[in-house]
């Protein structure tokens, strides 16, 4: 992955400024986005305005009771943390930063609202970048609005706080990376490194981005001697390495396994843990194929790639790096969702349009951007994005969501820790807790008594809530529905109290 600003003119500007740069710092070229720093209120206003469409989309999704699995999981973990009073009892959920942002107000809408503002901030930063292009205002507005209006981007901006935050952080890192490598501003280097480190707390792909930035240093740095290159790489990479070490240390201290955040069943790092969310791609050819398919959704990225190839061929490898990185990652079995790939390529394309791209190219870009917008509505979306898309289009809640809501409303006023529930694994117990808005009635795996209560529920809880797997077609299995029901394991000493299509509630006695 790379977010690349490729323009030779930018270098010339930097050189010109370097001539008058103070001797105290090696040179002081200004970043293209530097002006933004001095206008915090303008940035805030721009962020809010650009976040508004995403907030509306969030509201619409909430009316339809849709909430992504990631958000549901994070809200549920935040509820447990707040109501149990200790962060570490949940095994330090990874990634921690989105989770910690939700902790102060663990409501189903909180992560979506935050994601919307992050998307607004990202769009604002990109708008600053687009503002320096020689295109008519309408074209620049189209360049910003249309790519952000496609389903994958709206999903990212409303239902995927971690990935959206990662993109925002990486845009900030990119800005400072340029100031650092080209202008020698150590403050920018510090912020870029810090961003990568913080990024690891947002999403594990920050490590991949860090690798990209490290490899890109020789392409951008002015002083191409070995020493300065290595030094630049080291100071950029140190916070990221520190973040990885710190999180491994915390895992080791509290869970006993430094790589628990990678190896745990709930880890989002490997694709096997969330097969419903990510495309299962564990071979090179399959990975290659999926990336090619994804590339069809980002004509803008490819068009800008052509411009980059003409204007700044040396930096083309950095621009194309995401393609190779994602192929590699998917080949290794690491999850890299389609919408994140599309989001990454979009951001990269908008940030990477060379500054002095000929103004005469704007009609071509308009065609490309319309094509980009259109194909994203024509090509099918997959997995949870598709579910979200249906919820948005149908304007009515899905059956599963209605069921979860009903269960949540039914159990949320039960006595404290009276319901034994496994909120982990493949079942959607965490979604029920999230919808209930409280973890108080439940005895959960993070609780000390959970293990023993699982083996002897009648001694510890009054209710047991279990997922119900409906029997398959009697004709094909030869087992009647009644017999299948009877085979459903009822906890010893409990009787069925209430049933839903996918859940059963058992009561003691």
């Amino acid at each position, binding site marked *: 992955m790379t977010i690349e600003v490729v323009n030779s003119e930018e270098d010339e500007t930097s050189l010109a400024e370097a001539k008058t740069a*103070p001797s105290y*710092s090696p040179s002081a070229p200004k970043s293209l986005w530097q002006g933004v720093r001095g206008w915090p209120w303008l940035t805030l206003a721009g962020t809010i305005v650009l976040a508004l469409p995403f907030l509306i989309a969030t509201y619409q999704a909430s009316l339809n009771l849709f909430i992504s699995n990631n958000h549901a999981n994070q809200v549920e973990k935040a509820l447990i943390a707040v109501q149990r009073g200790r*962060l*570490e009892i949940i095994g330090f959920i990874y990634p921690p930063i989105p989770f910690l942002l939700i902790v102060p107000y663990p409501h189903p809408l909180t992560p979506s609202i935050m994601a919307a503002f992050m998307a607004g901030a990202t769009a604002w930063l990109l708008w600053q970048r687009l503002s320096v292009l020689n295109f008519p205002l309408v074209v620049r507005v189209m360049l910003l609005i249309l790519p952000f209006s496609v389903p994958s981007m709206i999903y990212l901006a409303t239902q995927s706080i971690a990935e959206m935050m990662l993109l925002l952080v990486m845009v900030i890192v990119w800005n400072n990376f340029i100031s650092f490598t080209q202008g020698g501003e150590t403050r920018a280097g510090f912020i870029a*490194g810090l961003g990568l480190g913080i990024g690891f707390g947002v999403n594990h792909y920050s490590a991949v981005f860090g690798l990209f930035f490290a490899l890109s240093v020789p392409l951008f740095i002015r002083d191409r001697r070995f020493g300065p290159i290595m030094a630049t790489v080291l100071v950029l990479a140190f916070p990221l390495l*520190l973040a990885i*070490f*710190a999180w491994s240390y915390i895992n080791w201290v509290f869970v006993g396994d430094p790589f628990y955040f990678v190896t745990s069943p709930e880890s989002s790092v490997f694709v096997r843990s969330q097969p419903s969310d990510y495309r299962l791609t564990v071979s090179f050819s399959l990975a290659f194929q999926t990336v090619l398919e994804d590339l069809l959704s980002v004509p803008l990225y490819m068009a800008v790639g052509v411009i980059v190839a003409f204007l700044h061929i040396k930096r083309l490898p950095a621009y194309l790096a995401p393609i190779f990185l994602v192929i590699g990652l998917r080949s290794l079995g690491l999850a890299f969702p389609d919408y994140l790939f599309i989001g990454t390529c979009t951001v990269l394309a908008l940030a990477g349009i060379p500054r002095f791209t000929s103004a005469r190219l704007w009609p071509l870009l308009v065609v490309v951007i319309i094509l980009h917008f259109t194909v994203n509505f024509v090509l099918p979306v997959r997995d949870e994005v598709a579910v979200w898309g249906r919820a948005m289009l149908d304007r009515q809640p899905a059956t599963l969501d209605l069921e979860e809501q009903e269960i949540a409303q039914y159990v949320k006023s039960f006595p404290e820790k009276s319901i034994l529930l496994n909120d982990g694994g493949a079942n959607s117990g965490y979604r029920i807790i999230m919808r209930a808005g409280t973890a108080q009635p439940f005895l959960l795996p993070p609780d000390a008594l959970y293990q023993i209560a699982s083996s002897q529920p009648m001694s510890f809880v009054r209710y047991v809530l279990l997922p119900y797997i409906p029997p398959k077609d009697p004709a094909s299995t030869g087992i009647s529905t009644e017999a299948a029901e009877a085979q459903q394991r009822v906890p010893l000493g409990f009787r069925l109290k209430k049933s839903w299509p996918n859940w059963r509630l058992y009561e003691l006695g």
Partner: protein
Amino acid sequence: MGTSITPPNSNNVATSVKPKVKEAGPIFHPVIRPATATGQPQPLGQYLVSAGVLSPQDLERALEIQKNTRDRLGRILISMGLVRRYDLYQALALRWSLPFVDLLKQNLDDDLIKQFQLETMIQQLFMPFAQDDTGVHIATALQPSAELEKLLTEVLGEVKLHFYVTTEWDIDQVLRRTHRAEILDGAIYGLYFRAPHESAYTVFTQRQFMVLGILLVILMVCLLLWVGPTLIAINLFINIAFFANVLFRFVISLAGAKSENHEPVTQDEIAALNDDELPIYTILVPVYREAGVIGMLMKNLADLDYPREKLDILVLLEEDDQETIQAAKAAKPPGNVQLVVLPNQIPKTKPKACNVGLYFARGEFLVIYDAEDRPDPDQLKKAVAAFKKGPPNLVCVQAALNYFNANENFLTRMFTLEYSYWFDYMLPGLDRLKLPIPLGGTSNHFRTDALRELGGWDPFNVTEDADLGVRASAEGFTVGVINSTTYEEANTRAGNWVRQRSRWIKGYMQTSLVHLRAPHRLVKQVGWRNAAGFLLLVVGTPLTFLAAPLLWIPYLIWIVTDTRAFDPLFLPLTLYLSLFNLLIGNGLAINLSMMAVFKRKLYYLIPWALLNPVYWLLHSIASYKALYQLFTRPFFWEKTLHGISKSTHTPAVPVAPVVPAVATPTNSTSSVSKVI
């Protein structure tokens, strides 16, 4: 005006002074009557040429300089080492038609001299030395003026004044002799008498002893009665303190880094300074047992890009350090360098020496350098420009310090990492946020009058510089930083390092105790914000070093033994804070020091930043030594040995090219004066 200024003719002088000076040295009479064809006095330069003490070529050079600086020719000639001070003033005596007097050979009338304020005589360059029936005999290094006459009359009444010419150094030297006790008292106790609450002479006030005692008793009682909760509370407190320190330093560093592209003084501003507008600049160089670096000192001073004749350099030597005194003499310093020998009296500290120097400082501005310092050549000009554009209450600007022997060994590398961070991020950050700046040991440039107003340095405080920065803030002055660096010699030996660091930490403890005697007064003087900055920086620094082992030792025990014994001490909040401090706090500190040396392009030092925790352990060792000494030897000045680096004689980093502005004098024109 009743008193007449009588330029005595030779006979008059000889007869009139004779009764008082008959056993003493001679009064010199003009032997040459320099005069032009029109009867006007011959110009000084021409006279010196005709007298054979100056070559025409040298005169031409000096006149060329004078065109730029518009300074007095005599001062230029002396600073260039082209004439001896003694010869010059004899020539001036002829020009002014006054006799020349060798003050060092006169019997002096102490009662007469002490009718005048010491500071007045030093600044106005005169002193009465004898009186008789004919009137009062005044030695002066300036042509007598109506103002001087008025000043003299106000004190002496209606008497006849007889003027003689002498050198300003002779005046200084004699005054150091006649006012020895006053000077020493002032240098040592001046601040204490002026503002006892600002002096570290009293280490702990009664109230502080009482508070400390009460706190200790409470702690003991709590430990006896509620050992668990007490330890939990202590653990929480320490972790909160560390956490606050981490955040504070992070914020300051970011603010400092933000100043990266802001130059307090630009090259244009320096170029805009005209030599003729530059003020006299005093340089104080206290040296003790540093004979080996005297040669380097002279060279480094010569490298300064500042008109020589406007430099007033005082090398402050200690009487019992004959080796350095001899080395200084042997170095044959140029005419603008005065060697001042201080009497062998405790406390034998740098601030005391500097206070003596402050008495005799004639510069509008003043700076302190250590003997081995290599300031950037344009540092003085940058300071002048900074004062020129700064607010009127700007009392001091601090230049950055760094090391020329950074790559010598582990200690020098770590020291360089630390200083790069401190001077390139922390101090600019404090400056930007307008918080009190604890000054560094050298390269702090002052407005001399404001420094005198502040009472100079506290000789009982072993980090008198840090104390002065805080004191300046408390008195309503501000301190700034300039974008110039002085290269010093980093400590190369562990023992020497611990000695030096223990002194610094002890000094921070002293400064903390002084300014916390009346916390309400501190808050009233500097405001809540600055008081908080003072607490976190000056008070917090020794405390964190002292507290660090209390955290590290249990941690190491836990790592090795996997004991659960410490678990009860960690409430959830304590646990999160300690994790943050351990992982993020230390990591940030390492990262910032990496960035600091990156900024200095000292790339090879970046991996060494990872060893900072080891270096911090040394700080803890030094801090416990400092704490011990605070109670046992509070004023003891742990002397740092200089000149032990391999690089002392061979610069490890490029230094500015030597500007051979000073002609090597064939005859030394410096003087060695001594307070006896």
